[in-house]
């Protein structure tokens, strides 16, 4: 990693020339799959949702009918012009309106199951890559007045590179939303972690729930291993999720063919690549809680969780998360886990001590009326809040 960073910075700082290629069609993307994989492995910041194996199936299923522009930024070393190095990948969606105003703009594409849109940028080349992106945004006929970084990490190397670019270019920009969500980072050991997160009384209560559950049958925490039958696990997970309130509301993965097949495709592929973590809590062999995480770089992302509601009073979801915390401490490779959850998620906010900042930021591309819109945004937001005051709760989101 260190070496990669050093070579990349030498390459970019001295002689490399950045260029932008824009693709409109998935077929055109196929020749670049290997470059994309290489970029993900050398990215300044991991984002599983934007890796090829997770994004290609999503583009195929959820991208149809969307006006997508796939922007690839390459660095070309003049000494080796035939092998350009992919340094940035930005899947963008063209939009005709912004906050109800008829303003054409671009945003990082976010499908239903994408919980982070931090772009993949090669470590050590962030400054040049962003300069190339903004250079393209300012001149290409297909870009609009604004570029929206939809749901990016609000700290870390990519965000820093963006802050630096905005500072140096004095390009108008505005944060549309900025909040934190639960993040797991291991402590010295699981006991230290749990005693910091939960009161002794609460831990005793959870122990008691586990005991009561064990009185009903044999309980077992089970982690998916390399030789296991992945298709059976996928089936189990989908069934469990469909039996919950999500199934009743029609929002379970199994309720929709495209979503179901997306889940199957990415879970299988993650398993094959060793980027999947799947845990289950079983009662007499039957799963009563399930979770599915994807690994990327030194971190991982909580993708889906499900549990059997008929056992709700034993908190099976919480028991499984406690087990997960113990497992994560036993493995040395996990640097962090992003909960991918809502700012106000009760369980993760209590159980996980860290937070990660998530931000949506809109930047003017330099085209009219981008600068003016950015300047007016806070005032418009203030006015609309004043006019719709009754709808805004002083306690914030519930």
């Amino acid at each position: 990693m260190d070496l990669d960073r050093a070579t990349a910075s030498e390459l970019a700082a001295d002689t490399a020339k950045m260029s932008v290629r824009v693709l409109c069609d998935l077929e055109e993307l196929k020749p670049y799959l290997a470059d994309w994989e290489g970029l993900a492995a050398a990215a300044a910041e991991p984002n599983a949702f934007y890796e090829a194996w997770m994004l290609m199936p999503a583009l195929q299923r959820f991208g149809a009918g969307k006006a997508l522009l796939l922007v690839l930024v390459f660095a070309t070393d003049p000494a080796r012009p035939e092998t350009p190095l992919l340094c940035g990948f930005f899947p963008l969606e063209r939009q005709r309106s912004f906050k109800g105003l008829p303003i054409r703009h671009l945003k990082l594409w976010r499908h239903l199951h994408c919980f982070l849109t931090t772009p993949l940028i090669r470590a050590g080349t962030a400054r040049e890559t962003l300069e190339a992106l903004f250079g393209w945004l300012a001149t290409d006929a297909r870009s609009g007045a604004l570029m929206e970084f939809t749901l990016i990490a609000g700290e870390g190397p990519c965000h820093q590179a963006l802050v630096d670019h905005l500072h140096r270019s004095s390009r108008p920009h505005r944060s549309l939303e900025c909040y934190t969500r639960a993040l797991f980072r291991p402590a010295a050991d699981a006991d230290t972690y749990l005693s910091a997160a939960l009161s002794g009384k609460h831990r005793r209560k959870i122990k008691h729930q586990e005991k009561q559950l064990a009185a009903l049958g044999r309980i077992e925490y089970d982690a998916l291993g390399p030789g296991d039958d992945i298709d059976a696990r996928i089936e189990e997970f989908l069934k469990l999720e469909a039996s919950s309130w999500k199934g009743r509301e029609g929002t379970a993965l199994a309720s929709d063919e495209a979503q179901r097949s997306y889940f199957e495709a990415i879970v299988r592929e993650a398993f094959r690549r060793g980027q999947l973590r799947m845990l289950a809590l079983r009662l007499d062999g039957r799963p009563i809680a399930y979770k599915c995480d994807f690994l990327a770089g030194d971190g991982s992302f909580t993708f889906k969780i499900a549990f059997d509601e008929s056992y709700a009073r034993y908190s099976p979801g919480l028991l499984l998360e406690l087990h997960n915390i113990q497992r994560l401490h036993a493995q040395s490779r996990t640097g962090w886990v992003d909960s991918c959850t809502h700012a106000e998620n009760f369980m993760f906010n209590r159980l996980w001590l860290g937070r990660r900042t998530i931000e949506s930021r809109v930047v003017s591309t330099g085209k009219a009326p981008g600068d003016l819109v950015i300047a007016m945004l806070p005032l418009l937001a203030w006015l609309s809040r004043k006019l719709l005051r009754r709808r805004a709760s002083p306690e914030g989101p519930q």
Partner: protein
Amino acid sequence: MSDVAKTRRSVLGAPSAPARGAGRPKMSIVVVEDPAALADYVPAWQELAGSAIEPNVFYEPWMLLPAIQAYAGERDLRFVFVQASDPADPSATPMLCGVFPLERKRRYHGLATALPLANIGLWKHPFCYLCTPLVRAEHAAECLAAFFDWLAAGSHGCSLMEFGFIAGDGPFWQLLSDHCERHLRPHHVSKSFLRALFQPRGDAETFLRAALQPGRLRELRRHERRLADAGPLEYSTLEPGHDVDAWIDEYLAVESISWKGRGGRALAGNPVDQAYFRTVAREGFGRGQLLMLALRSKGRTLAHKCNFLSGTGSFAFKIAFDEEFARHSPGVLLEIENIRWLHARPEIRWMDSCADAAHPMLDRLWSGRRTIQDVVVGTGGPLGDWFVAALPLLRHLKRKLFRRDPPRQRLEDSSE
């Protein structure tokens, strides 16, 4: 949002009792306007500095109290202390949870013309390079909420509050942005930039190999040899038992012959600055929070560096080198010694350069960055909220208006 989010309605079986502990603490505010009265708070304040969500050596009492003496002058300063008391035991001494050193100004300078809009902001004196307030990790959210309640009560008579020069990527900013988001407080990040941050990597050699190209490393070794030709080079560190005053004198002497001295910007050129530096360096030494490094040869000081330590962090305060040796980069050689020193102390996880954005030397040597930003919020009244919301548009219009007359504007810019 992820469907994890949708499980908020108590599914997952998580019990819905309040998070931890029996009762919520009751927060109260004390505003101190007379600096002499601050002495009473020093022990609790110092203890808070060690339990804060983010260390900030510049706001520790031993660094801030001398600054008040030196730089408060006619400024309208006030110190807001946020305390927590246990509702079950109201007679117990309240626990200090936050210190906000504030300066009140009659005019707002965020636009080119100073507007007659009273505002209050974190106090930044000339030698304060970070204004992140000290907030206790335990009760941090309650502490900030109490501070905002105090802002809204309006006893300060200001419509704006400026959190200037705070860290833009640590727990305090997370707390502030969460608070503003949750309570729909209009806020505006009026400036945001990066400065160099040191974070160790494995060991010093790994760090240096990643930071410097092989050619540059060889060149620096050559410089070191050239310097050593004149006489043996000596890197030394101020240790307990050393004569701190001699080290302070040595620093001041090197600085006064550097470019800062020629520009009239050396500490020794100003008695107030010099006295402030002497006081905080001595005090920092006594507390084990001062780190001084020197590069010497044959009794001459080639480069000198002064850092302050605080918890798991540290802050680069001053650096100077003798320009006669400039072509052999004694300042960079001493920075490399600093990198070695820091790698030998794993308990120090970072050093803030306290430098400007795009520092020519440290940006190359240190690959880490930290975000520094100014955030302005309304104190709670309609005028302040309106102004914060309108500020970007006012700035935009001002720029547009000035652009009509570019030659004059350019002249004004260059004269500054």
